[in-house]
């Protein structure tokens, strides 16, 4: 289970200040905020814009451009299934359908209890060991039904 600290403006200011002196600090700052809070709330965008002398629109534009950043809290656990060509060639389409059925979720959806989300990802660099997936920072290759079941069980635990 990923655990995040609750958002407070003081903590956000502190995180921003750690990275503010870097060259091109915006991406490292946003990564750090998301790492701490699990998402980047509007109040954090305001703080970042103020600290780095940017407009809120610029920061918002960045947060929404990159797939990794989210503005709302996410599921406790996210299964990312690789949907790129090399995994397609190794039976990834069937695994994706199976995952959707077993979880009762379509790609991009989160379970009602907020526990599990299913997302697609394009390439994890395991292209001769697919179909592959990621749960948190953990990689799983050679997915078949049995390994998928274990993965889903782990995500729901």
């Amino acid at each position, binding site marked *: 289970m990923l655990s995040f600290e609750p958002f407070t403006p003081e903590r956000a200011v502190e995180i921003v200040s750690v990275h503010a002196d870097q*060259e*091109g*600090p*915006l*991406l*490292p700052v*946003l*990564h750090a905020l998301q790492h701490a809070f699990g998402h980047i709330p509007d109040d954090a965008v305001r703080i970042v814009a103020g600290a*780095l002398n940017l407009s809120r629109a610029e920061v918002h*534009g*960045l947060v929404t*451009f*990159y*797939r*990794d*950043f989210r503005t709302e809290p996410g599921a406790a656990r996210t299964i990312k299934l690789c949907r*790129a*060509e*090399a*995994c*397609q*060639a*190794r039976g990834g389409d069937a695994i994706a359908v199976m995952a959707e059925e077993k979880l009762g979720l379509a790609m991009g959806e989160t379970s009602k209890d907020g526990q599990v989300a299913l997302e697609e*990802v*394009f*390439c*994890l*660099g*395991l*292209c*001769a*060991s*697919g179909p*592959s997936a*990621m749960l948190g*920072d953990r*990689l*799983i*290759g*050679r997915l078949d039904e049995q390994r998928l079941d274990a993965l889903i069980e782990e995500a729901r635990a």
Partner: protein
Amino acid sequence: MSLKLYVPGDAAAVAVGADEVAGALAIEAAKRGLSLQIVRNGSRGVFELETLVEVETPEGRIGYGPVYADEVPAMVEAGLFEGKPHPRRVGRPEELPFLKRQTRLTFARCGIIDPQSLEDYRAHGGYAGLERALSLGPAGIVEEITRSGLRGRGGAGFPTGVKWKTTADATGDRKYLVCNADEGDSGTFADRMIMEGDPFLLIEGMTIAGVAVGATKGYIYVRSEYPHAIAAMGRAIETARRAGLLGQGVAGSSYAFDLEVRVGAGAYVCGEETALLDSLEGKRGQVRAKPPLPAHEGLFGRPTVINNVLSFAAAPFILAEGAEAYRDYGVGRSRGTMPIQLAGNIRNGGLFETAFGVTLGELVDDIGGGTLSGRLVRAVQVGGPLGAYFPRALFDTPFDYEAFAARDGLIGHGGVVVFDDTVDMMKQARFALEFCAIESCGKCTPCRIGAVRGVETVDKLSAGREPARQIEILRDLCETMKFGSLCALGGFTPYPVMSALTHFPEDFAVAERLAEPA
């Protein structure tokens, strides 16, 4: 008795249980009261053997693979610690045909050494390149790289020596190096393997480039999907800094050079060099119009060398062994070796570094052993999501920048993705357009709108609505995207689409498909 085992820490091994295997081996050693050293080496790149466990014996390193954690107790019982026979015993890994046939210059150490040990790196010839580079000086280094014939391994194939010279000659109050490690192409993993399996090689290569062009700071931009590579590079950079190989007075010289890892945020387009520069600067990863070239006005408006991981990683060999030693490999204008990545539905998938000139057929049928599914190979996509699909009829194409271009394809970053005869090429064409629509940075119209219209057109086609007209529209869209887009995302998406249409027209014959009973 002291026991030394190698269990890869490469993500492709970890993804199939290498950490659990290492844990199980440690338990078995403890049970027997053996003092055990486990080296988490990189992967040798023979992925169907992962987790490949190697044990050091008087006869050399003996490999067993694939090993799964639940089988470890029985395998140890059968004599794995002594290198004894077992159905999974593969003998000395370097004697495996897949490895023996390779020419490993860039990957010479990957899978062999402890990637986080600077001593191990040096003991296997590491930092000999930088040593000679420092004795040659900046102009001499650029000259050496130019004569080697090295071309950009990210895909564009631009002569690396020319790029370095342009940056070296440019004036600026400071200069930068940027390493493009945003390896987003499906079917590629060579950058990841180097960063995880031989990170000091990339550090040495970038240090050589830094000295050559007068850059004092380098950024390695790694995609966030590569957490293992990010961690491995960060640790190695710290080690190099402590050893005086980065920072002020690199390796006792008068040059200053330092490195920093930056993490992407899930945008494929940031693999395009100018979008990557914008991303590093803290902007949306949008493509810049060229000129100005990054060599003149790159990161933060300063002269910048931006190269792929494999381009920088080729430099230490070239400097240590000399330009000729590298240039003597290869064909035509494609000199040296290419780390080719065999992926998808292939029996022997993995990293195959070889001199340019090997044919696609040799790679797929002979070295790759055909499909994993055992069915016929029908299509091969070379060069990532923006690369063309080649049919068997083009299997005589040699792996060479110009030869692939002459057949409306590209070698890109060297990824080869194999599909068997169950593939639906109209679906693959649609996927290429959908991928472009999702990943487009939105800056130029042909890419932003063209990809969306392309998906709609293929959908109309598969529904059987005026098929001839849809195909005409699709060709026209591809033409517009190819010549009207700012960068390779929009500009090359037509390659997979048009190659599917040209080489596999039967999959687009909708009338026949719809007439078939379901």
